[in-house]
């Protein structure tokens, strides 16, 4: 296709703007990574932007001495894995039931679920409930309140409803129960949609800091994001120093560590799982958004 002069100018501008945008998108991440590999005392002099000026691994060395961090990392992994498994299982089970036209009270159930998407009791009544259930300061509060997602249920249900009827007919003739059909036929053919929902859920669990901030007070149960926020608002140097002799000794001898350099290293560690899975995340998330936005 031949482009007119005006069209060409517009294209050039678009390429330029998009390139600029890419730089703006990547820079904050890159700069934080650079700072985490740079001596803190050197960073404080200013001007560390695209490349470490005084390269060092000591920030990571010190951060790994912090037992709270490793513990929070484990808690978050445990939370993400178990939470995602439970959530996807119960949400998919619910979605399968709701996808059946023969389900009695289907319409009423749907209204019951839809209402929660537009109206909620709010922060305080939810907090009072969690407290009344005795879930404050337990591992369960990190998992259970998020198990059923109405939005995800609708996405999965749309997918199930579009499966060909014939798929289940033969199994029914063979006397398979609804559970048999669900486990042996429906789940195996729903790989892509379940993978997408799993990733959505897992990223949600991994990135959630607020649950930990309001329901957890014990250090040993803090998810990594909540801990990270605490670290950003406190003096991580004294905190690590007061609990770990090796780290204290190192910091006293070298005097190159700063709160900022340690915070950046901690942030990078908390982001590693997201970066490692990013190629999958990207692929499946795009699919998920498109399934989710289809109106029935």
């Amino acid at each position, binding site marked *: 296709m031949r482009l*007119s002069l*005006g069209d060409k100018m*517009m*294209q050039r501008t*678009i*390429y330029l703007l*998009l390139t600029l*945008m*890419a730089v703006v*998108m*990547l820079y*904050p*991440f890159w*700069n*934080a990574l650079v*700072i985490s590999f740079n001596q803190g005392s050197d*960073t*404080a002099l200013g001007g560390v932007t695209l490349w470490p000026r005084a390269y060092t691994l000591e920030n990571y060395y010190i951060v790994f001495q912090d037992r709270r961090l490793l513990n929070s990392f484990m808690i978050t992994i445990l939370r993400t894995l178990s939470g995602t498994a439970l959530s996807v299982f*119960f949400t998919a*089970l*619910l979605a399968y*039931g709701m996808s059946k036209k023969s*389900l*009695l*009270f289907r319409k009423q*159930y749907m209204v019951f*679920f*839809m209402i929660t998407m*537009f*109206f909620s*009791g*709010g*922060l*305080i009544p*939810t*907090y009072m*409930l969690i407290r009344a259930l005795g879930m404050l300061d337990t591992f369960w509060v990190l998992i259970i*309140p998020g198990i*059923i997602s109405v939005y995800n*249920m609708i996405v999965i249900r749309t997918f199930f409803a579009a499966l060909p009827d014939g798929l289940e007919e033969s199994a029914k003739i063979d006397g398979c129960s*609804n*559970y048999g059909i669900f486990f042996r036929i429906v789940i195996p053919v729903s790989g892509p949609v379940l993978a997408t929902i799993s990733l959505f859920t897992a990223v949600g669990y991994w*990135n*959630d*800091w*607020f649950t930990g901030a309001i329901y957890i007070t014990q250090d040993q149960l803090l998810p990594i*994001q909540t801990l*990270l*926020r605490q670290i950003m608002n406190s003096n991580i140097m004294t905190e690590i120093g007061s609990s770990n002799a090796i780290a204290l000794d190192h910091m006293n001898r070298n005097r190159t560590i700063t709160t*900022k350099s340690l*915070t*950046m290293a901690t942030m990078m560690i*908390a982001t590693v799982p*997201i970066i490692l899975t*990013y190629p999958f995340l*990207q692929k499946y*998330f795009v699919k998920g*958004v*498109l399934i989710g*936005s289809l109106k029935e």
Partner: protein
Amino acid sequence: MKAAVKPGVWKKLTNQLDLQSMVWPGIIFVAIFSYIPMYGVVMAFQQYDIFNGILESPWVGWMNFKMFFEAPEFWNVMRNTIVISLLKLVITFPAPILLALMLNEVGNMAFKRFIQTVSYLPYFLSWVIVSGFVFSLLSVDNGTVNFLLERLNLIQEPVNFLAIPEYFWSILVSVNVWKEIGFGSIVYLAAIAGVDPAMYEAASIDGASRFKQIYLITLPSIAPVIIIFMILAIGNLLSAGFEDILLLATNPILRPYSDVIDTYVYRVGILNARFSYATAVGLFKAVISVILLVTANKIARRADVSLW
């Protein structure tokens, strides 16, 4: 529903117990974690006290609502909520549409894919991480923004941006655009991909420039999608932000510009333990939001677009 009173219902129900039992865990769950808190909003009309609980606490009518409307913070909180929401509606909301339109003009597939990959990334980072980036970039020591401005001789001294209330709205909205623009564009790109290419060809033969084609073909074609998201955004008008504000406005000096309904509820409710009062403020917000959503949906119905 007439079917619900037919005599055969009980029998039908017992015949499909296994199917029903797939749905019940979800129903029980939502009943506990969504409906009990909805019932919990009655606290807004009580003087809740921990020892008496919801059942025994004294009723006070609209007192908590009155207290909020007369609170010294009220106008400030409402102003911030509405201004931040409108800023997000005017800037954060159209940004992904603009990006999708621009991406659609890119012929080089590798470049297009690269831009998409890069622009989705921030969406996957938690707000805690994002706020860490913002603090770092805007900081006085080795903050890149100050570094650049100094290099360009625009400022003499580093500026502590996150301690100046007047800057907060711009920072908040920019960060939101940064985080959401790429991911938000996915839906619009898909909608654009669904436009009939013959329309562009016809317009092209008629001599319409690309810009004119975007304006006259692409935008009207994706209007229904835009309207759906617009309805949702209007329903969320009183949810100006929560995580982002809580994490970025750690400096209390910013409060005259950063305090919105949700952060106010969190502060007085959880941190100051004024449960009934905070519930009333939250309920006020929830009710207005539902009204806004229903109204927006009604208006959109005239254009044959509806959420339900």
